[in-house]
């Protein structure tokens, strides 16, 4: 199997792929990026926590015009993963308003987005319909 690298450092690959967040130890706010401090309370102490891999689509759009190299149309969404909001594409679903709705239940899924000159695969993530 080819060497793999996650698209972003908050995606953990392996047998149970999942996302991790930096959680502020004083107020509980969660962030996915490298932090200087907490935007909610100013705290500087964080712990890494696992984010739920299932959730509900809170909003979405179907993007028809995107940057070069991005296949369109695709579904961009915000998924509420048991209280933690996650930005992601919806994958393994027909990208039209008949097949995508707010409130639909989804689960995390990964997909290879490309292979570099060293043969390493970059693996991204999205959410797919539950029981679909």
């Amino acid at each position, binding site marked *: 199997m080819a060497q793999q690298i996650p*698209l972003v450092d*908050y995606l953990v690959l392996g047998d149970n792929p999942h996302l991790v967040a930096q959680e502020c130890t004083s107020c509980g706010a969660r962030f996915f990026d490298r932090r200087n401090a907490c935007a909610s309370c100013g705290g500087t102490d964080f712990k890494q926590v696992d984010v739920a891999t299932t959730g509900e689509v809170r909003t979405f*759009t179907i993007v028809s*015009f*995107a*940057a070069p190299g991005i296949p369109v149309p695709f579904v961009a*969404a*915000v998924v509420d993963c048991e209280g933690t*909001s996650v930005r992601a594409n919806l994958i393994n679903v027909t990208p039209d308003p008949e097949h995508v709705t707010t409130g639909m239940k989804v689960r995390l899924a990964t997909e290879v987005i490309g292979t570099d000159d060293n043969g*390493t695969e970059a693996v991204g993530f999205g959410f797919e319909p539950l029981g679909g």
Partner: protein
Amino acid sequence: MASASASEELWILGIHMTKFGKHPDKDLVDLASEAVQGALSDGGVTMKDIGIIGAGNLMMAMAPTGQMVQKQLGQTGIPVYNVSNACATGATALRVALMAIKAGETDMGLAFGVEKLAGAGLLAGGSRSADSNTWTPHGRFGAVAAVDGRVGTETMPGVFAQIGMEYGHKYGGTSFELFAKISEKNHAHSTLNPLAAYTKKMSLEQIMNDVMIAYPNTRPMCSANCDGAAAAVVVSGSKLKTLSLEQQKRAVKISASVLTTDPYEEACQILPNVNTLTRRAATQAYEQAGVSPADLNLVELHDCFATAELVHYDNLMLCEEGGAADFFNSGATWRDGKTPVNVSGGLESKGHPIAATGIANVWEVATHLRGEAGDRQIEGAKVGMTHVIGLGSACGVHILEKSAA
């Protein structure tokens, strides 16, 4: 006296906007100069009367735009503040001039916003960089490739589409058709505005069948990239009293001027929350002005996309919470409705030369309050509101009142 200036009244003395659209024969300085000269002459003053300049421009933000305009119209040595604050740039420039007056540093200021955008494509987000030949993590997400399009979307049409869809998910009552009807209204309004970039009426069917950009926003439901500029001369109340009766009669009172940013809330760094900062700005503005939403005779709000206009009915408290769809369906926001919104045609048809927008919407409301809006005059307009929002985020709200002089 510094202590007196805090309660100093603020007035628009002169204001002007250029035609929005394509100006291939005019550069940034030409457009800005046209707006500034128009505002000065409208106010009956010259560059020699101005004590401060707030100069707004986004796409060429590295350039000293204010000084470039001074070098054409008058180098008087006064302070210039070149500002850029996303789509709130024009409102920010205006506030810079107003704050200088409030601080007692001067009694007359100039603000302008200018942009050359005709022919620009969709404005995307900022994190897109070229993918490399070997995966190397970089940036705050340790990303090995561009995330825009792979981890959701950063394109403006996509972001604002989700903001409208989220409102629908929370409160119900929205549909592709409803959002398209908002656009139908604004395009109908634009037919009466000779300064709008696009003045064609569009049927609901035309709008819905046009090119889909980011569902549910089709092309005519997106703000129109174009060239344009707007400028305003603002004065203190005590200075205005020393000017002619004609100047005092045409002056428009700025009863509230507010700028906010987005406070931290869960999810706000996932999808920009344009709601809370707008609601806060509106709340502060109503308080400052001592008026309520029911007092507004017209509103120019930031319809960068049809989906955005809907949520701002609610954020500006023009309707009850959650009631934006019903409010629109009642016809309230058409020009003959209870609270006319975007009688200029809005960003979708008047156009959106970014930095000009936050002063052009003030021009629109001021022109109605002066009773000078011609065919599209809202009869008897006494109080109006303007609103802009720039992602990042910044929200500017102004409340204007007709002069009693």
